């Protein structure tokens, strides 16, 4: 009796104290609303690694610490806002001449900033240009763990089924430094999964290159500083930090962190959203935005054999003239783009101060604009969307918005 009385008093007091604490000292947002939450089921050791990697992802470099000599931004988090997408101000410009990466002209990526004494690159004349908005980085560990066979199973390069949609994998050669036992590594061509044309096969390569190209930070994987070939040799000032500026463990910590980032939870099912979901299948969105996959084995137990509801086939599609950048990337042509996963859209605006930027270069600012931009293989689905009644169209949009 006395015991239960004590509990009766204690529980409300504790609850009030905890809420008062949140009230006084700010409360955390829901995990499902975050882009930087860990996937559920990690061990404490994995969570400790996650926290270490999170620091690396947020770390900005000063010129004295090795930033540059030429670069785009000073931290991963300065492009991938809250681990989500970036704004057009942070978009990268990639250049090439056909399949030649135009290295002598500053390709494959223009670094438009430089530390004092160095000269930034400018886009040269007569090259193919592709502008790329930073995509979200959450959920990439799940994407990495989907078996190659499951993804390739959806490919239909020559449109054998005659539905006008011919998803194609991007087979790419991994960089030399990617060990054979790394997911996406190995001898010969590997399935590309990352970046906007799926031109990268492993997170390790994606992230080592991000340090090297986007931030001018050399690592054990890419130890030679990226310089501006447009500047004369004598004026190519370097940062004062000795190379490599970070070690393999630092890169690996960030790879592990990104790998363990969970996609945010979708919104609750409402009758309107359920209707939208049906329409999504009916009008053919799902032919490319494949609803879900199952992961295979993974070095992180919590990533293995999981359902991944990402709404993407991770394949390349010809999206028509309007979206074409006419710049090939790996095996991808200048008209092809990787189907984007539809996740995190529900809260994406919260990480862009209320704005939203969609598609590879961020040119669409609403979901319906993004759909209207679909051409090429997606023209039939787009037209079907435009032909929907106002109510149905709203239901479909509401479904996509709530992902």
């Amino acid at each position: 009796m006395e015991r239960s009385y004590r509990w009766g008093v204690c529980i409300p007091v504790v609850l009030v104290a905890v809420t008062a604490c949140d009230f006084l000292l700010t409360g955390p947002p829901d995990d499902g609303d975050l882009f930087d939450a860990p996937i559920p089921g990690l061990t404490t050791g994995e969570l400790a690694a996650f926290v270490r990697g999170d620091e690396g992802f947020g770390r900005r470099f000063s010129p004295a610490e090795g930033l540059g000599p030429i670069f785009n931004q000073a931290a991963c988090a300065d492009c991938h806002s809250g681990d989500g997408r970036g704004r057009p101000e942070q978009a990268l410009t990639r250049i090439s001449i056909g399949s030649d990466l135009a290295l002598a002209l500053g390709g494959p990526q223009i670094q438009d900033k430089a530390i004092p004494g160095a000269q930034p690159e400018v886009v040269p004349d007569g090259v193919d240009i592709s502008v790329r908005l930073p995509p979200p980085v959450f959920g990439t560990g799940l994407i990495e763990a989907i078996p190659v066979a499951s993804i390739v199973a959806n490919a239909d390069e020559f449109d054998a089924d005659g539905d006008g949609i011919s998803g194609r994998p991007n087979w790419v050669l991994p960089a030399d430094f990617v060990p054979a036992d790394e997911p996406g590594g190995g001898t010969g061509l590997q399935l590309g999964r990352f970046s906007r044309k799926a031109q990268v096969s492993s997170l390790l390569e994606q992230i080592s290159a991000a340090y090297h190209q986007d931030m001018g930070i050399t690592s054990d994987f890419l130890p030679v500083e990226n310089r501006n070939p447009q500047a004369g040799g004598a004026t190519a000032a370097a940062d004062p930090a000795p190379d490599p500026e970070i070690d393999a463990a630092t890169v690996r910590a960030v790879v592990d962190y990104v790998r363990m980032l969970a996609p945010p939870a979708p919104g609750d099912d409402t009758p309107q959203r359920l209707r939208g979901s049906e329409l999504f299948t009916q009008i053919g969105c799902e032919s490319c935005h494949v609803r879900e996959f199952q992961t295979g084995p993974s070095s992180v137990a919590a990533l293995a054999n999981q359902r991944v509801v990402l709404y993407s086939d991770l394949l390349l599609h010809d999206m028509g003239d309007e979206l074409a950048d006419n710049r090939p990337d790996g095996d991808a042509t200048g008209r092809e783009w990787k189907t984007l996963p539809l996740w995190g859209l529900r809260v994406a605006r919260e990480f862009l101060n209320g704005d939203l930027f969609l598609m590879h270069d961020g040119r669409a600012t609403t979901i319906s604009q993004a759909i209207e931009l679909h051409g090429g293989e997606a023209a039939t689905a787009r037209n079907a969307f435009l032909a929907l009644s106002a109510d149905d169209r709203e239901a479909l949009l509401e479904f996509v918005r709530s992902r």
Partner: protein
Amino acid sequence: MKRLATYLFVSIALGAPAIAVAQVQDTLPARPFVRGGVYDRPYLTRLLGRTVVGGYLEFHARLQRVDGANEDSGFEAKRWNIFTATEVSDFVRVSAELEFEEGGEEVTLEFAAIDFRIAPTFTIRGGMLLSPIGRFNLAHDSPLNEFTDRPLVSTEILGTALSEPGIGVLGLFPVGSGGRITYQVYAVNGFHAGLIEDSPDGTRIPLGRGNVEDNNASPAIVGRLAWSPSLNFELGISAHHGAYNVFEGDGLRVDERRDLTIGVVDLEAALAGFRLTGEAALANIDVPATLRDIFASKQQGLYVEVLRDFGQAWVATLPASFFSVGVRLDIVDMNADRPGDNTRQVTLGINFRPTEDTAFKLDYLRGTGRDVFNNPADHAGILFSIATYF
């Protein structure tokens, strides 16, 4: 008997040095052990009793959160600062402050200056100077502040305590009845390029401090002019201007000259039992064009605080004790070139002072910071601190 002999022997042995010292002192300064050595300094030989030593000590306990996650919480042995001041002669005064911050992690000579007083209107000062950039930089001792933390504009933009090697003049002119105008103007080493090159977070002026050997052989000018018609009011304006980068080498122009200019207005007033203090600062930084967007070329900030004392001798056993309550608003924009990268916060504080020189401070602060994407994050904190002069 034997015991007594031992006792006498030990006492004489122990007493001997005292006798010896007395003898040495009698003969001072006839022949020092080392001429100019540690026991042959003027404060022992000539100025005896004229050097005073003091200081202050400050301890913090903090609980802070950003969007529900703990940040910067725990105990801090924040500062132990020691002062000395000496009247060398009727014209010459020397004073110094040595700061031990964060449990001794940072030790800095914050101030060490010689004043040569020619007239009240004109004193020459040289040494490690406290830069007259806003009133707060000149008077920021923790036992004096009513809040645990210094204003954000002072810590984030001006880099209080900002001290620089330099030389210049100061003085005061009486105006009206009881009013005065004070001025200070110095040539100093100024800032170095660390405010950009050592900073991962965009332009951070405090990282350009510590230009102990001038990096560019080009002095900066800093000065403050303050008008105070009565004890209850003072209005000051100050400015700091100079090149921060190395632009010449071997007599050749090796880079563009890049200047940093800071302007500050400060105000202090007392009215109807309330004390009002405030400061607003604007900084213009010439940033290399290749770093625009990431490194700010303009920063601004202000703070305003209102305070009231009460409860004099409420604690009956401490007749000199009193309480104060106060509220402070802080606004800083670390990159005024574009949206985001700014902070606003309000701090509520209550203090108890057993005597004027010692303060027990309890603060609650709450605010919103915006990152480079202009996304907001709420922060809050409960701070407790003790600070006392000694």
